[in-house]
């Protein structure tokens, strides 16, 4: 007897053309719990969604627990090395089968009745099986798992959307930008090294709206800009290039399709080794380790020092992965008005010893440079996100505007590949992202799970 899977999304009950317009979006996108619930299926899991970095599960049987939208999942490398995302939900009564943040395990045993699963998702056994008339080998008792998991250069993405195009096709030109970010590192790889973990009482999209926003920097981050330049030594530090006329600076914002966008501040910085290091703000150990690295590497020291300095890019992969500076920032929605924003640090791996023994010193500096923005910048952004959430309680004044740059002839340019480029403070990235968002929400994708190991 066929039984329904219950996986079909609710039919659209919202007028998306009214909620998402060319120049503005409605407050309900940020405040309506029902829209949030729909996003947790249509967006998170409905499109390719970042779930983990391969450096978190380097060996067979390694796992982390996380979530895909609100679904608890275990992302792991199984006993044969296959990367999987298992639903962390016992098929018997629904309890989570893994309660650790990370670890290594060949099996997961539910703490409630002892049902036990291999890390392929397959049910390995239950206590007193002779009490069941049904065949426990039936696939329906295996852990559910995400049917499609693909990795691009260490970034593991998942989708429940059977019709999604392959990940690299979905990322499109974004792959080149990820390549550039990784290829500045020896071996083209990084590994995660703990995180600055923040939470704000606001909708997850407030952080995504901010991700390529060049308009807020001078205002939201005024305290950081003043702090970084208080000692007035050498070049202007950090994001000082935002302070006068950011739209006239060579940096730009770019939209690359499927909700993905890119803020490229590299053109503001001189194209020479050491230029990034020269604008890096003061941080613990800076002078000592710089001097030590210079002694060790001589005229190659700048290459190493630049690796400790922040890469001036924001690479934003919808809906939840923001690669910026040397961080891998991940957005995890908790509720319509609560979001976790985790800034994973990344460390340099130098297996070929291209840095001639300096990698440990580079990483020591890099840990400290990475702590700067979450401590002195992101806290102010997060406070502004919370204040937006408060402001949006005003029902009769529902619009959030994103029309900066819209309608100005010659300001926004589209090239033959369809990439859209605009000056740094333009909100075109937001307008285009909401166009993609509207497609997902207005025509929810069909979602599937898999039970075959």
């Amino acid at each position, binding site marked *: 007897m066929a039984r329904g899977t219950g996986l079909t999304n609710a039919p659209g009950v919202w007028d998306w053309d009214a909620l998402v317009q060319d120049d503005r979006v409605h407050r309900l996108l940020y405040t309506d719990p029902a829209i949030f619930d729909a996003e947790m299926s249509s967006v998170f899991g409905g499109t390719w969604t970042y779930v983990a970095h391969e450096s978190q599960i380097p060996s067979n049987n390694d796992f982390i627990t996380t979530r895909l939208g609100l679904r608890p999942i275990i992302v792991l490398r199984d006993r044969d090395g296959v990367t999987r995302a298992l639903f962390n939900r016992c098929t018997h009564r629904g309890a989570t089968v893994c309660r650790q943040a990370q670890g290594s395990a060949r099996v997961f045993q539910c703490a409630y009745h002892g049902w036990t699963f291999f890390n392929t998702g397959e049910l390995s056994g239950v206590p007193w099986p002779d009490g069941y008339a049904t065949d426990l080998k039936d696939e329906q008792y295996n852990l559910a798992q995400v049917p499609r998991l693909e990795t691009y250069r260490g970034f593991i993405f998942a989708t429940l959307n059977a019709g999604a195009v392959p990940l690299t096709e979905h990322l499109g030109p974004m792959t080149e930008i990820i390549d550039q970010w990784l290829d500045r590192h020896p071996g083209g790889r990084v590994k995660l*090294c703990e995180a600055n973990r*923040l939470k704000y009482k606001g909708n997850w999209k407030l952080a995504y709206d901010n991700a390529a926003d060049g308009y807020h920097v001078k205002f939201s981050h005024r305290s950081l800009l003043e702090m970084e330049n208080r000692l007035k030594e050498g070049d202007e530090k950090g994001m000082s290039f935002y302070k006068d006329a950011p739209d006239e600076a060579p940096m730009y914002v770019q939209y690359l399709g499927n909700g993905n966008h890119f803020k490229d501040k590299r053109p503001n910085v001189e194209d020479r080794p050491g230029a990034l290091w020269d604008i890096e703000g003061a941080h613990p150990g800076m002078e000592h380790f710089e001097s030590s690295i210079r002694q060790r590497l001589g005229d190659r020291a700048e290459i190493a020092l630049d690796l400790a300095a922040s890469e001036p890019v924001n690479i934003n992969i919808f809906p939840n992965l923001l690669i910026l500076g040397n961080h891998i920032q991940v957005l995890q929605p908790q509720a319509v008005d609560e979001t976790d924003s985790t800034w994973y640090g990344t460390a340099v791996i130098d297996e070929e010893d291209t840095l001639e023994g300096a990698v440990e*010193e580079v990483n*020591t500096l890099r840990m400290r440079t990475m*702590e700067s923005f979450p*401590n002195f910048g992101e*806290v102010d952004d997060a406070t502004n996100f919370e204040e937006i959430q408060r402001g949006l309680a005003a029902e009769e004044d529902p619009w959030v505007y994103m029309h900066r740059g819209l309608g100005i002839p010659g300001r926004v340019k589209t090239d033959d590949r369809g990439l859209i480029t605009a000056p740094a403070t333009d909100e075109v990235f937001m307008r285009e992202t909401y166009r993609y968002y509207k497609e997902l929400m207005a025509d929810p994708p069909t979602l599937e799970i898999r039970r075959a190991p």
Partner: protein
Amino acid sequence: MASSPDPSRSSHYVTDAYYADLVVDFTDWQADDRLITEAATREACRAFLEHEARLLDTHRFEDWLRQFTGECLYWVPATPRGGDPRREVAVCLDDRRRLEDRVYRLRTGAAWSQLPASRTARLVSNVEPFATATDDILMVRSNFTLHEFRAGESQLLAGWCAHRLRRTASGFEILVKQVNLLNCDQNLRNPSIII
């Protein structure tokens, strides 16, 4: 170099050896056989930590900075074990200059995360000093709860501190303050106050 560089201007003291000592100094120091039971020292430590809490609760950040040595550290690990800060990021790890940066930022009038400023009340308790291999240096463990009220909402932080203190003619000065939040590896809302 004729004189040692000013740690408020440049950071020469945070070396690999400094980190290595830090990791050793903050591992396995809470041994019962090193607990100081002498009442006067225990009372002096308790009074010092209560004073420090009052400086922070009353936003006397510049006075608070003066409790530290020149070559000091303020460290809030992001893992319960503290880890090795050369290999992992911390919630914060401030040397002298960055600690002054932190206070400077709060005083700019544009640190939106502290406008309005948090009102805080710290309860410091379970103060236990421990002897170290160096006569004039103590390690002090204390538990804390920190009630924070800001922008109409309250939150509670809790955990324990490890202060590495040096005796001076007039009392103590702080070499290192390590703050161990119970939820250090969880997502923290607006971690913009000095803990």
